[in-house]
């Protein structure tokens, strides 16, 4: 029995996992990172557009601060997020950007003086202030009042991931590449690490840790059409679910990105629209202003994706033999801008479409993009239900994004949550609760159980074909649990997924080898992915309202009275075919920003009974503190300082701001 001991085990070498690992390491803990692939190949590298943080350096960002970022985030979430977490996040995001700057990220910088930009289809001259010359610049993104998205051309995620990954090397943190956590070791109340499969040799080992952090990213690959990488299969979330005690939250909250190239599903960044690109239909008409006169192409992603699909349904799509699509037109941005700031987009268009976006319009259609749901944690990153288990990044439901995340808020979340959970884990390991108390018998039991599962797949007499079942699951999710959802179709999806889950227990495998064996990997991952798919589909079926990215044609209104709550899914025993769902209410009486209209999209929510009183109360507090500074007012409305780790307290300075 091979056992590896460490203080902190981080499962996942993307931005979130790496940042958490560096944090714990700097507090003196021994850390090991596991990753399916070399960490720099994690999907964080694919984030093109940028990272939100309210630095307020640019002309169009002037006056930005935590308050504005907070409100944008809450509205974006359609009031589904945890507002305290959103506060903690907007407070720490500027620090995260500045830390990354110190670690070498070549953020684009403000150049003082006039410059040409495209806004709302028009060429406009903006004059950047002298005082900001050389400070970190920002671009426009959907659903934001200010230009707040810091960026590195269109390779933001790449530059961030390389900088943080190199910090992990500098801290001498070992990364065990090509390994996969396939189960968590736990005793029902405490997590003790993970059972890990070496993807090259096939060997299983136990990694025993005081603190275990899951940072395995999203699970887009349960869908057929997705912008996600091939490795985004959600195994980290699934193994948490399989403990029977840890909880997944809001799994039905799945984001569809408006602009992925058609039909391959490869993403072109929101920066295309942020920088002035337009959406057009088959007849070349710019249709978004017809639906969203206010924000147009730059409403939040859920709204733009829905409007696009609506427009296609109305017969305005471009018809091809693969289906219908719309156009993204960035030709008006000009060659210089596209060749400099949108070069990855240009390369993608050249490689996969054989077109030049300087001259040609890009065929696009929405595709699955982001998982708002994930492992439910508290604000410090501790997973609910299992002590010693932590989660951060896209794998977690920290609950910054509620039912829709804003572009640029995700890579920001990875590093901010990583900063926080790194501290949380170090605190935990140093505390008495962090002591290792695990019997080798328990470790052996978990190892043997996982080995038995693999042996059954390899040598059992199953006859089902794993790739076929995988394809079927992905089709069901894309066709029936997509942008527009309906009770009858969701019920069909749930029934069919349950049937697939039963069939997946009888998979047979042609390749018998124990080592590197892609067929075996597909088989055991599929069994886990089906559970996630069921959490998504069943959660969507039960939620009879529309909120953010979750849109029910048969229940088109947001229903705060009935549904201002978070879905919690658990999977108690392996023979269940459906998750157990429970709900956790969001407390309107404590919200800094009580529910209202988002400022875009439909204006038809069913009000929560407590909203009116809270709105009045907030107004009273605001007027009572009429002369106080914004920090004092905020503190009176919804204190959150207690959630900020010691290391990240203090007020964020901005140019020209007296920080009072």
């Amino acid at each position, binding site marked *: 029995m091979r056992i590896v001991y460490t203080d902190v085990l981080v499962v996942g070498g993307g931005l979130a996992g790496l940042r958490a690992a560096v944090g714990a390491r700097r507090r003196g803990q021994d850390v090991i990172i596991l990753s399916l692939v*070399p960490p720099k190949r994690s*999907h964080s590298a694919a984030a093109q557009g940028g990272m939100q943080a309210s*630095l307020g350096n640019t002309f169009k960002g002037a006056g930005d601060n935590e308050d504005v970022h907070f409100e944008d985030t809450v509205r974006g979430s359609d009031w589904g997020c945890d507002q305290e977490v959103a506060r903690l996040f907007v407070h720490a995001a500027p620090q995260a950007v500045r830390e990354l*700057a110190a670690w070498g990220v070549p953020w684009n910088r403000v150049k003082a003086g006039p410059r040409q930009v495209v806004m709302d289809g028009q060429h406009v001259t903006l004059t950047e202030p002298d005082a900001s010359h050389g400070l970190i610049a920002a671009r426009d993104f959907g659903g934001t009042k200010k230009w707040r998205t810091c960026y590195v051309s269109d390779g933001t995620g790449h530059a961030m991931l*390389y900088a943080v990954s190199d*910090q992990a090397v500098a801290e001498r943190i070992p990364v065990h590449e090509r390994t996969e956590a396939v189960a968590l070791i736990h005793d029902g109340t405490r997590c003790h690490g993970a059972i890990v499969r070496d993807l090259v040799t096939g060997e299983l080992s136990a990694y025993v840790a005081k603190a275990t952090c899951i940072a395995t990213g999203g699970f887009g690959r349960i869908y057929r059409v997705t912008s996600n*990488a*091939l490795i985004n299969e959600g195994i980290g979330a699934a193994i948490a679910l399989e403990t029977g005690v840890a909880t997944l939250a809001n799994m039905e909250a799945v984001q569809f990105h408006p602009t992925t190239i058609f039909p391959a599903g490869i993403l072109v960044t929101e920066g295309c629209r942020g920088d002035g690109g337009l959406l057009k239909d088959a007849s070349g008409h710019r249709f978004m202003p017809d639906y969203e006169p206010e924000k147009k192409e730059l409403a939040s992603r859920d709204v733009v994706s829905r409007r696009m699909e609506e427009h296609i349904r109305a017969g305005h799509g471009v018809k091809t033999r693969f289906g219908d699509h719309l156009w993204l037109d960035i030709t008006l941005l000009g060659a210089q801008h596209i060749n400099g700031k949108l070069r990855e987009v240009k390369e993608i268009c050249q490689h996969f479409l054989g077109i030049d976006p300087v001259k040609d319009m890009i065929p696009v259609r929405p595709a699955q993009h982001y998982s708002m749901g994930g492992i439910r944690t508290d604000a410090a990153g501790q997973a609910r239900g299992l002590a010693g288990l932590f989660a951060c990044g896209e794998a977690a439901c920290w609950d910054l994004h509620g039912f829709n995340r804003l572009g640029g808020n995700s890579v920001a979340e990875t590093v901010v949550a990583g900063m926080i959970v790194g501290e949380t884990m170090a605190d935990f390991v140093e505390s008495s609760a962090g002591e290792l108390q695990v019997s080798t018998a328990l470790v052996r039991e978990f190892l043997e159980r996982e080995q038995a599962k693999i042996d059954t797949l390899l040598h059992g007499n199953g006859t089902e074909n794993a790739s076929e079942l995988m394809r079927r699951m992905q089709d069901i999710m894309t066709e029936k649990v997509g942008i527009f959802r309906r009770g009858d179709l969701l019920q069909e999806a749930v029934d069919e997924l349950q049937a697939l889950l039963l069939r997946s227990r009888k998979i047979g495998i042609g390749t018998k080898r124990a080592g*590197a064996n892609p067929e075996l990997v597909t088989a055991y991952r599929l069994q886990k992915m089906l559970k996630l798919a069921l959490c998504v589909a069943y959660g969507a079926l039960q939620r009879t309202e529309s909120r953010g990215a979750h849109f029910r044609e048969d229940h088109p209104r947001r229903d705060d009275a009935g549904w201002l709550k978070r879905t919690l899914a658990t999977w108690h025993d392996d023979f269940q075919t459906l998750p157990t769902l429970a709900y956790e209410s969001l407390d309107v009486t404590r919200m800094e920003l009580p529910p209202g209209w988002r400022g875009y999209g439909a204006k038809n929510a069913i009000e929560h009974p407590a909203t009116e009183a809270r709105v009045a109360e907030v107004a009273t507090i605001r007027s009572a503190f009429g002369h106080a500074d914004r920090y004092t007012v905020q503190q009176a409305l919804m204190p959150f300082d207690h959630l900020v780790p010691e290391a990240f307290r203090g007020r964020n300075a901005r140019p020209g701001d007296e920080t009072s």
Partner: protein
Amino acid sequence: MSTSPRILTLRVLRSSPAEGEAPHWEDFRVEEAEGMTLFLALTEVRERLAPSLQFDFVCRAGICGSCGMLIDGKPGLACCALTRDHGSTITLAPLPVFELIGDLSVNTGKWMRGTAERLETWIHSEAQPDLTAVEPRMEPELAEAIYELDRCIECGCCVAGCGTLRMREEFVGAIGLNKIARFRLDPRDERSDEDFYDLIGDDTGVFGCMSLLGCHDVCPKGLPLQTQIAFLRRKMVAVGLK
């Protein structure tokens, strides 16, 4: 204009060192589809014909650097290679130099981590950044110039294309030299040219390069490897003469 689709033959150099399976060519036939990339073709082979076939795709969009292989003998990213740009028989082999895992999969990760440790590819700075203060300024043009060199995706194509590396295993390669150029350009890194000389001032570094430029033509990101290596060599010669 509907002609019947081509039948492609993918001629793959297969092997499984773990099981003592020696390298041998195996042919797979797939029907070409519109816009087919080698990623799509190989996925189809694995799903229908050879479930044990090993290869490494992650982003399938030319971003992550996972899928470098020899395509008709030339290093390149398989996910961005459109089959229509190739003949009806396409040979695929794993990248040389790197440790072979099996079939088209090689261990670039281990090599890259080794490079990062050896060349200390991170910002060296004594100062602890003050995270709540307004960030230090940088000229916009300089930031963009650093990003130009930061765009390397560690795919290993330049390594596989380098004649020196096939003879001298410890050579840092174009990728290593480009990394040094990147950190040297970055004023946040406090290392001096003398420090960099210690890292690459011999024939496992910049003086090992024979300027054959096998690296330059194969870099999928179009990094200016040729000019960077030449520039770095002049700088390091200057240190050597001191």
